[in-house]
């Protein structure tokens, strides 16, 4: 009898005392897919969130599909001002009927003005929050971040999804990577830079987003943004060129396009007079995609010429970004980190202290070993 009574009491108290009451139905949650932080007035932050609206996303049983053409897309962008990011979100919460849920944030965008001021606080906020993923992609926006959240790419239902896809095939920079880079000695952050654009050239106030430049950081502050050539150099350096095309001119007007499928970088360090010098050996292989001049690539001599041009081109691109960065004392490749790992004693005693000032004089030679391994058609060859 007593055992039965005890069991019954336990069962009832288990149900009544625990569980159940902190459940939250999907319909009561606002899933944030992308957040943006901008510099607000004074020392404040302007936090913005992008929340897709399930009711207008066109699932079975829900009313209506997403009408992207007119007015607003199937998502909501809300903004809140606060002394820190969390406060900003709390302020947004006061305007929303559903609980804000950061567990599905996939993209975190930091505005340019804030990035110039320093982003470590923002990274810390993203890292500390228990429900936020540190695998969210980190992006820097040209201008205000909220502008990107409000953009409506036609391909996707909301810009967060599009940005995620683009960030994935870019250098794949996540909050975690950024935090790691920030805490590593002799390595600076490189974060993709995004901007709004149109799909047609000259379409300035477009709703699309583009991602073809990079924001280079010195510590946690934005130092400069790259141009196109330097951007390609970054892709080569980060081994992210595979599946992307590389174009270069062989003669004056005609270009060759090669789709890269192999891109490897191997740094090598030698000490000259007690100073480290680096040799970067770059391996690149690709498939011929376009051959404007109808060069006979089967011919060894012609092939040699083409390859030399290709290697030169790659070398130039890499050199451009390294030079630019090193001149400002920024170590984008992480030569210092290489030394930290491989020559730790010397790094600690000799180099670490004034690494940034030695960077402009750091000698980096680049050896490119390129290949065109496959061709679909080697070009039309007119019969003589």
């Amino acid at each position, binding site marked *: 009898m007593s055992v039965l009574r005890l069991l019954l009491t336990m069962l009832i108290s288990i149900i009544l005392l625990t569980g159940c009451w902190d*459940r939250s139905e999907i319909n009561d949650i606002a*899933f944030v897919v992308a957040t943006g932080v901008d510099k607000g007035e004074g020392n404040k932050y302007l936090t913005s969130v992008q929340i897709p609206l*399930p009711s207008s996303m066109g699932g079975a049983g*829900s009313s209506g599909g997403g009408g992207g053409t007119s007015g607003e897309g199937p998502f909501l962008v809300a903004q809140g001002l606060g002394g820190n990011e969390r406060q900003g979100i709390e302020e947004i919460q006061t305007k929303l009927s559903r609980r804000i849920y950061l*567990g599905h944030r996939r993209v975190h965008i930091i505005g340019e003005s804030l990035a110039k001021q320093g982003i470590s606080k923002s990274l810390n906020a993203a890292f500390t929050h228990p429900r936020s993923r540190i695998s969210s992609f980190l992006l820097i926006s040209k201008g205000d971040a909220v502008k990107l959240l409000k953009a409506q790419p036609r391909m996707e239902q909301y810009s967060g999804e599009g940005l995620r896809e683009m960030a994935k095939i870019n250098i794949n920079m996540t909050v975690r990577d950024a935090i790691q880079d920030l805490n590593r000695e002799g390595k600076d952050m490189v974060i993709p830079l995004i901007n709004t654009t149109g799909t047609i050239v000259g379409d300035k106030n477009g709703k699309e987003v583009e991602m073809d430049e990079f924001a280079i950081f010195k510590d946690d502050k934005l130092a400069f943004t790259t141009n196109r050539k330097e951007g390609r150099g970054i892709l080569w350096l980060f081994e992210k060129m595979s599946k992307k095309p590389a174009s270069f001119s062989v003669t004056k007007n005609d270009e060759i396009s090669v789709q890269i499928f192999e891109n490897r970088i191997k740094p090598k360090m030698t000490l000259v007079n007690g100073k480290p010098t680096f040799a970067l050996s770059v391996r690149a292989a690709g498939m011929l995609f376009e051959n404007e001049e109808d060069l006979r690539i089967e011919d060894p001599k012609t092939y040699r010429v083409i390859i030399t041009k290709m290697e030169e081109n790659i070398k130039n691109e890499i050199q451009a970004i390294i030079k630019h960065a090193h001149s400002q004392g920024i170590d984008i490749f992480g030569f210092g980190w290489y030394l930290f790992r491989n020559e730790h004693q010397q790094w600690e005693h000799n180099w670490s202290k004034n690494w940034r000032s030695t960077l402009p004089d750091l000698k980096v030679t680049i050896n490119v070993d390129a290949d065109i391994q496959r061709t679909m058609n080697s070009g039309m060859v007119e019969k003589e």
Partner: protein
Amino acid sequence: MKKFKKLMKDKPISLSSDKTNKEIQPDLTANIETLKKLFEDCSDVVFRPIIAGELKATFLFVDGLVDTHSIQFSGIHEILKENDKEYLTADYLMKHILSVSSVKEISLLDEAVHNVLRGNTVLLVDRVPTGIVIDAKGGQRRGVTEPETESVVRGPREGMTESLRVNTALVRQKIRSNRLKAISKEIGEETKTGIAIMYIEGLATPELVKEVLDRLDRIKIDGILESGYIEELIEDNPWSVFPQIQNTERPDTIAANLLEGRVAIVIDGTPLALIMPATFWQFLQASEDYYHRYHISIFLRFLRIIFVFIALTLPSLYVAVTTYHQEMLPTNLLFSIASSREAIPFPAFVEALIMEISFEALREAGVRLPKIVGQAVSILGALVIGQAAVEAGIVSAPMVIVVSLTGIASFTIPRFNMAISIRLLRFPFIALAGMFGLFGIVLGLLLIVTHLCKMRSFGIPYFSPIAPLSVKALKDVFIRVPWWAMNERPEQTVKLDVTRQADDLKPTPRQGSEEGNPS
């Protein structure tokens, strides 16, 4: 609780047993009178008096249970021819006159009653102090047909019937060995149901056979109408939802299990026989696993294990993940679930319960209904539950998918009794998930696994050979090794004679022989 137990204990066992203990008298009329009193108002009991000259006799049988044709021509007719004799001994009758295959002499009236009720015919002759039992059973019984609950694509098509003799014969036809024993017993004070305990001597351990017999002897009940009565009366853990005794209506399944040292109980009046001991994994195996090629058997066994898990936990996982762990779903999947759940008025837990219960109701309705109506019900159910409910916004489309997948999963379990256990356990799991999320599901799984590991079936751990682990026996659990590798009988059941077959049965090109060696 204690009071209740006491009440149960003190209740006197009052089972009717109106035995006369009378011997058969030389006086026929006296005997007939006693018997007529016993069979008063039994309109189906026939007393057939005959007078052949000086000889008076009475045939006594139950109409419908005996083969009247053979009684007529081998009994009545033969005796009527003997109208010149004044006196006949029972011995003479049996040896010279009655031309039926099986006769027996009895001396008690109780025995006469006993035999008449089992479909035998009793012959009482005047001035003879014994009776003669003529075994000429007949009567209508369903013929051997294809088993409906365990149909196969490849394998024998015959299923057991309601007749004990036919069933034992079907097994005997598979195993033509004198080591195949069939101990017969009778259970049920009123029904006197005949059962046969079948096993192969030398394979089944004597302790197991003795245990089975002991447990059967304990049964004091008025009637056994189906194998389920016996199953519930002899199983090890009567409180468990899991079946601890396998039932089958396939003689080949019985034969296969007997060959692995198990014991089968064949019961008169039902086509389902019981097989014991049984392990958990046995219920996930179909007889066809051993008939098809082993590749597909292995695939199917893995599939079943996955689907057992799905049948048990999928609705609860859905409830747990959507109400507690939204971060676990891929974002895009989450949004498609969210958009279809947008208009749903119920919490996921209630939604799951509604759907699961209506699915069970639909299934139950389909089982009980006549076949012709059944089709209408399934159309109605599919339309109402599947489509209209979603369109009306009562339940969400993902929930319908979850429920139907769970339903399909529960039908992949080959043994029906295990399938219903799993189906039943789904509901506590949904409740656990609704209360505690994934934590609750893990808790529930832990409880179930602990329970399974704790149970035993006739001396064999229920979860073996996984717990306790026996690597050797794994050849026939998740996988089924090809027959040429199945060299030993399962060591859990067979202790004495482990070798099943020669160990070089794998077909290979013949080496070193004169013919057929191309190299």
